[in-house]
C-alpha cells in the first residue's frame, strides 16, 4: 500500500516537473506555466517543498510548482527576522551583483499569535515538512539559484541548486 502511494506521488511529481532531484534540478523557463518568452517583464513564482527526514539531518528540497506572470515587481520584501532562514542566491552568467533573497524557513518558524485584547505573542512552529514560495523577477542572465539553509550558530549550508534554462 505504502509503495503504491509513493509510486503515485513520484509519478505526479515527475510528470509535472520532470528533472527535479534532491540536491540539484533544472528548470527550463519555457516549461514554466504561463511563461511568455516574448515578454520582457516576467515574474516567476516557484513553490518548493522542504523536508527533514531525520532530526538534525540536511533539509531536502524540491521544486513542486512553477508559474509565471507578466509585470514588474516593486522592491518590496518582508524582512525575515527569525534566525532560521532559507537564503537563495541568484548566480549570473554575466557579471552582476548577487543580491541574496531571504525566506522564512518552512520547517523552523515563529508565528505571531494575535489576541482580542490587543496583545501579540510569538509561537514556535517546527515541522518535518513544509513549503515556501519565492517570487522573483525573471532575468535571462540568471544561470542558477543556490539555496542555503541558515541556522543560528551555524555556517550557511548549501542544500539545493536550481539551474535555470531558457
Amino acid at each position, binding site marked *: *500500500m*505504502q509503495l503504491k*502511494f*509513493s509510486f*503515485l*506521488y513520484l509519478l*505526479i*511529481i515527475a510528470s*509535472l516537473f520532470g528533472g527535479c532531484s534532491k540536491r540539484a534540478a533544472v528548470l527550463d523557463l519555457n516549461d514554466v*506555466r*504561463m511563461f511568455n518568452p516574448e515578454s520582457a517583464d516576467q*515574474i516567476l*513564482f516557484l*513553490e518548493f*517543498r522542504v*523536508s527533514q527526514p531525520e532530526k538534525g539531518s540536511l533539509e531536502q528540497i524540491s521544486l*513542486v*510548482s512553477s*508559474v*509565471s*506572470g*507578466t*509585470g*514588474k*515587481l*516593486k*522592491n*518590496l520584501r*518582508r*524582512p525575515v*527576522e*527569525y*534566525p532560521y532562514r532559507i537564503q537563495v542566491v541568484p548566480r549570473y552568467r554575466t557579471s552582476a551583483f548577487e543580491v541574496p533573497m531571504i525566506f*522564512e524557513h518552512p520547517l523552523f518558524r*515563529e*508565528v*505571531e*499569535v*494575535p*489576541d*482580542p*485584547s*490587543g*496583545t*501579540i*505573542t*510569538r*509561537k514556535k512552529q517546527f515541522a*518535518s*515538512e513544509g*513549503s*515556501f*514560495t519565492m*517570487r522573483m523577477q525573471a532575468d535571462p542572465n540568471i544561470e542558477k539559484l543556490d539555496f542555503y539553509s541558515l541556522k*543560528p550558530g551555524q555556517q550557511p549550508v548549501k542544500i539545493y541548486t536550481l539551474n535555470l534554462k531558457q
Partner: protein
Amino acid sequence: MKRTFTTLLFTLLLSRVFGQTFPVDTLYKSGPVDNRINVVILGDGFTKEQLPKFNEEARKFAEFFLDYAPYNKYRNYFNFFSIPTPSEESGVTNPGTAPDAYPDQPVTQKKTFYGGTFGSSIHRLVTVNYGVAFNVLAANFPTYDLTVMLVNTEFYGGSGGSIAVHTLNQSANTIGAHEIGHTFAALNDEYWAGPQYGREAPNMTAVTDRSRVKWKNWLDIPGIGIYKHGEDGPAATWHKPSNATCLMEYLNQQFCVVCREATTETILSLVNPVEKIEPGNASEYLVTEPAKFRLGLLKPAPNSLHVEWDLDGKKIAAGVDEITLAPSDLPATGKLTASVFDSTHMSRSEELAEQRVRKIEWNLKSNSPAILKINASDDSLCVGGFVTLTASGCPGEVSWSTDDTANSIRIQPDKTASYTASCVATDQKASITITVLPLPVIEVTNNGPYLEGSTVVLNATGASNYTWKGPREFTATGAEITIPLAIKEHSGKYSVKGTDVYGCSASAETELLVERLLAVGNDPEEWVRVSPNPASDFIKVATNISGKSTLTLLDLSGKIIRTKTFTRETELKLPVQAGVYLYKVTNGEREFSGKLAVQ
C-alpha cells in the same frame, strides 16, 4: 506512510489550482498598477453563493485600511483588488483541540479553497495553505504588492507572514494592518519578541543618545522617547520609540509617529507623484509661441506636494502645476526644470527628504531673436531680502549698473531702485525696477503676571497674520491667543512672527510670568493670615514675618486690582463687586496666595 500521504494530498491540492484563473474584481482603483501600491484581497470559506459577501467584506477591509493613518493621506496611491475563489463549503475548519478553543464554536472540518483552519494547539492562530494562495496570485495578479486573506468566520483569529490572514471578526482587521506594517515598511515589533528579533529597524535601535537616535526628530512629541524593551538581558539593549501606544506593540493602538514616518517614506519611494508631463521631454522642445509646460500630479490629501520651476537654475515660479513660456522668455537654448517635493508632515527625516524630490527637465530652444531681457527672481521683496537678476538674450558679456559684470547678479537692495543691464556685443540695454517693502513693526503684550488657573491673553499688533511659539512646544496662530487654566510651566518667552499683506515678516517677544497658586491652609503656624474670608468691604492681613510684605488683589483673569505694601499687619478696602478674587502676599522669597470670597 503518513508523510507520503500528506505529501500526496499537498501535491494534489496544489495541482488543482495550478495556474487556474479567476476574475479579478476592482474594489478601489486610483491609477495604473505600475505606479500604485496594489493590495490584493483573497477569501477562504466563501461558497459560490457567498462570493458577493466576500467582495463586500473585502471592500470593508479596503475602507478600513484607507482610513488608517498614514495610509489615509495617500488613499489615491493605492489600488485594491479582490480575487473571489469559491469554496466547496462555507466557513473554516475548527479542530477544537486547542486549550483556548472558543466553547461556543462548533468543532468542524470544512472543505475550503485555501484549507483555512483554526490552530490545533493555539486556537486563534488561523492559517491557510500559502502554496495555494501563491498559485492563485501567480496566475491572476502576479504584480501584487500586499496580500490579505479574509477567512469566513466571525470568530476572532489570524496569523502573520507574507500573507496577512484574519477572520471577519470586527477586532481582527488590525491583524492585517500590523502584518502589513512588517511587510510594507519593514517595521519591527514593539513588544519584546525575543533576542532573535533585536535588529536595527525604523522603530528599533540600540542607540540611546538622544542626538543620534533615528527618531531624534520626534522626541518632542508626547509619548515618544527611547524606551528599553526590558529591564535586563538583551531586552535592555534594544529600544523602541513608544511604550504601549503603537500598533506594532498592541493591536488596539494606532501606528506611532515613528512607524507612520517609515510607512509614509515607503509609500513615497514606491509611487511617483508625477504621473504625466506635457509636453514630453524625450527630445529638445522648440518654443515658437507661448507654450504651456504642465505636470499631472498625484496629490495626497491634504496636498503636500510643492512644485518649483527653474530656468537654467534660476527660480521662475513655485506652487503651480503649469507655467507658460514665450520665446522671448528664453535665451537661445535653455533647460527648464520642475522639482516636485512632498513636504509631508508625516516624515521629519532630513536624509529621506532629499529622495522625495522628483525632477523633470525639458531642453528648450527659442526661435526669438536675441533681445536683451532681465528676469528677476522677485520683482518686489522685503527689506533684508535678496533678489537675483538674470540677463538673457545677450551673446556675450553683460555689465550692470551695479558695476558687476556677469549674466546673473544677486543683490540686497535697501530701497526701491532700478537696475540696468548692458549687452556689450549688441549695445542693447534693459532695465528693471525692484520694489523694496518695509518690514512690519510687531508689538506684543501679555497683561501678566498671572496666577495659576487664570486665563493668559497674548496680543500682537502690526501685521495681518501671526505665528506664535513658546515653552512646552506651544504654537498658535492669530492676533490674540488665550491659554486657559495657565500653570507655572507656561511661563517663559513667547515669540510671535507677524506677516503683513505683502508677505513681509518681523518678530517680537514677550516674557510671560505665571505664578504658583499656593493652597490655603488652616495651620495657625502659617506665616500669613487673611480675614475675614468671606469678606464684605475690607480684609485684614497679618504676617509674623518681619520686613516689608506686599499684598496684591487680583480678579480671576489675573488682572491686578490693588497692591499695598505693609509691615506685619494691614487692612485693605475692597472697592469691588461681589465674587471670588485672588490675593497674593509676598515677603522676600516667600509667597502666599489664596482665594477670597467677597459678599
